[in-house]
C-alpha cells in the first residue's frame, strides 16, 4: 500500500473558548514515514493530528493529502484515508461486542464477507484480542480497551494511521505489541503518526520526531538528532527529557545514542 504525502501549511487553530492551540504550523510527512509528535500536555499535539482527518478544521492555513486540500472533503470521506485512534478509548468505543466494535469501521467503508472477516481477525490478532471477540468492551480493563480502540482503526486498513498516546496504561507486553504494530504498518507502506509522552517508545519505534511547544513545532529530526546533546536546551524548554541512553551516551562522550541498542553499539565501538 502506498500512502499519500501529507502537507500541513501554515495551519493555525483556535478553540471556540479562544484557546489558541496551533500557531502557523508547517509540516510535511512523506508516505510510509513513522513520525512521533512530542510535547507537553496542552502543546497542541492532539489538536494537530485532529486536523488530519477533518475532526477539526484549520482556522487559517490548509492541510493537503496527496496534494489535495482536504477542506472540501467530509470526515466520512477522509475516514478511508486517515484512521485516528483516540487518546481516550471510551470516547471511541460504543458497540456491545469487541468484534462488533472492530468491524464497524471496515463495514462502513463497504467491506463485506471474507474481506471484512480478514480485516477484523487481523486487527484482533495484532492487538492480542483474538480471544475476546465476544466480550463486552466494558468488561475489558482500560489497557485492553485502549488496544481495542487501536484494533478498530487497524481494521479499516487506512493508508495513514494516527495514534494518540497509544501506550497509555500498557504494561511491558502491551508496549512490545504496539511497537510491533507500528513496525508492521510501516513495513506495509503505511504512514504512522503517533502522539506520545514515552520517550523510549518514541526513540525505539519512530524514524522522525517532531517536538511541539505552545502550538508551534520547535524540533524536527531523527530520534538521534532530536535527543542529541545540542538539542537538550530546546527539549528542556518543552519540559521533555531525552531518554536515559542518550543521557548516558553524552556523559561518556559517545555522540547521539537515543536507544539502548545505539548506546551498546557505541560502547562496543569505543572499545
Amino acid at each position, binding site marked *: 500500500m502506498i500512502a499519500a504525502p501529507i502537507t500541513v501549511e501554515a495551519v493555525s487553530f483556535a478553540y471556540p473558548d479562544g484557546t489558541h492551540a496551533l500557531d502557523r504550523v508547517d509540516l510535511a510527512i512523506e508516505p510510509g514515514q513513522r513520525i512521533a509528535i512530542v510535547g507537553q500536555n*496542552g502543546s497542541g499535539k492532539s489538536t494537530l493530528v485532529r486536523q488530519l482527518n477533518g475532526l477539526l478544521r484549520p482556522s487559517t492555513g490548509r492541510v493537503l493529502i496527496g496534494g489535495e486540500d482536504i477542506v472540501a472533503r467530509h470526515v466520512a470521506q477522509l475516514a478511508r484515508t486517515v484512521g485516528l485512534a483516540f*487518546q481516550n478509548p471510551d470516547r471511541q468505543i460504543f458497540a456491545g461486542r469487541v468484534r462488533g466494535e472492530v468491524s464497524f469501521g471496515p463495514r462502513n467503508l463497504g467491506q463485506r464477507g471474507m474481506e471484512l472477516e480478514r480485516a477484523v481477525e487481523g486487527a484482533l490478532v495484532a492487538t492480542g484480542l483474538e480471544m475476546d471477540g465476544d466480550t463486552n468492551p466494558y468488561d475489558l480493563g*482500560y489497557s485492553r480497551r485502549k488496544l481495542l480502540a487501536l484494533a478498530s482503526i487497524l481494521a479499516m486498513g487506512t493508508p495513514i494511521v494516527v495514534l494518540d498516546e497509544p501506550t497509555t496504561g500498557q504494561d*511491558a507486553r*502491551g508496549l512490545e505489541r504496539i511497537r510491533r504494530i507500528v513496525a508492521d504498518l510501516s513495513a506495509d507502506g503505511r504512514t504512522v503518526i503517533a502522539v506520545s509522552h514515552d520517550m*523510549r517508545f518514541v526513540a525505539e519505534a519512530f524514524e522522525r520526531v517532531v517536538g511541539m511547544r505552545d502550538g508551534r513545532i520547535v524540533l524536527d529530526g531523527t530520534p538521534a538528532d532530536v535527543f542529541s546533546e545540542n538539542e537538550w536546551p530546546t527539549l528542556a524548554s518543552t*519540559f521533555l527529557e531525552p531518554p536515559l541512553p542518550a543521557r*548516558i551516551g553524552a556523559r561518556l562522550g559517545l555522540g547521539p545514542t537515543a536507544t539502548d541498542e545505539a548506546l551498546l553499539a557505541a560502547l562496543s565501538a*569505543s572499545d
Partner: protein
Amino acid sequence: MSGDAIRLEGIRYQYAGSRSWALDGVDLVVRSGEIVGLVGPNDAGKSTVCLVAAALAPAVAGGRLEGLAWLVDGPTSELPAHEAARRCGVLFQNPLAQLSGTSATVWEEVAFGPRNVGLDRGLIAERVERCLELLRIGHLAPRDPGRLSGGQAQLVAMASVLALEPRALVLDEPTSQLDPEGTRLVGEAIRRVAGETGSGVLIVEHKTALLASIADRVAVLAEGRTVLTGSTLEVLADGSLPELGVDPPAAVRIGRTIGAAGLPPGLADRAMAAITAASA
C-alpha cells in the same frame, strides 16, 4: 493495626457473577505517611486491589471477599460508603469518569468534594487554592472541566481527591496521561501529601522510574497474588520483573544490558558510573 492506613491480609476476591478469584492471596500494608507502589502486568488484578483497598469492593461493586481488609480505623466489612469515602480518596484510571459533570469551572470541581462533606467556605477556598497550586494548575481554575486535555483532566481529578485530605489514598495509574513534567509534579505532590498530612498512599504505576523516586516500598502482583514485596530498590532491581511483565526502571534495564555485554572491565565500570550519574 494503629498506624496502618491500608492493610490487606490473605485477600481473595471474586466479582459478582464470576466463578474465578480475581484476587487470590493479596497481602499488603500501607502505613500512615508511607507510599507503597503496586506493579504488575495488565490483568494481574491491580485495579481490583484498588477497589478492595478503598472499600468499594464488595460494598459497591458486589462480589465476594475473603480475608481482612482494613482502612484507617477498622475493617472495611462494616464501613458505610460515606465513611469509606471520607477515609480514602480514590483516583481512577480514567480521569474523565471521575469528574462530577456538575461543575462549570475547574475551581468548582475541586471544591465539589469539600463542599459535600460540609466544610466552611473559607476552608474550602483555602484547600482548593492549595491543591491547584500543589499541581501547578492554578491557571486552569476558570476553565470548563469538560474541555480539558487528558493530562489536564488527570491533574484536576487528582486535585479534587487531595482536597478532601483523606487519610488513605488509592491512586490507579495517576500519571498515565501525563507528560514527563506533569508526572514529576504529581510525584512531588504525592510525596508532599504523604509527608505533610500523614496520608498512606497506595499507587498503581507502570512508570517504575517514578516509583523509584517516591515509593517507600513496592509490591508486585501477578495473577491476583502478591508475589514480591519489599523496599523499592530491592523489588525494582529484582531479576524476575521482566518475566513478570514489568519493565524495570531504565537505569536497571540498561545496567543489566551493559553488564551482560562482556565489555572490558574498565569500560563497563565507566558505563555503570555514567548510568548512575545520568539517572540521578
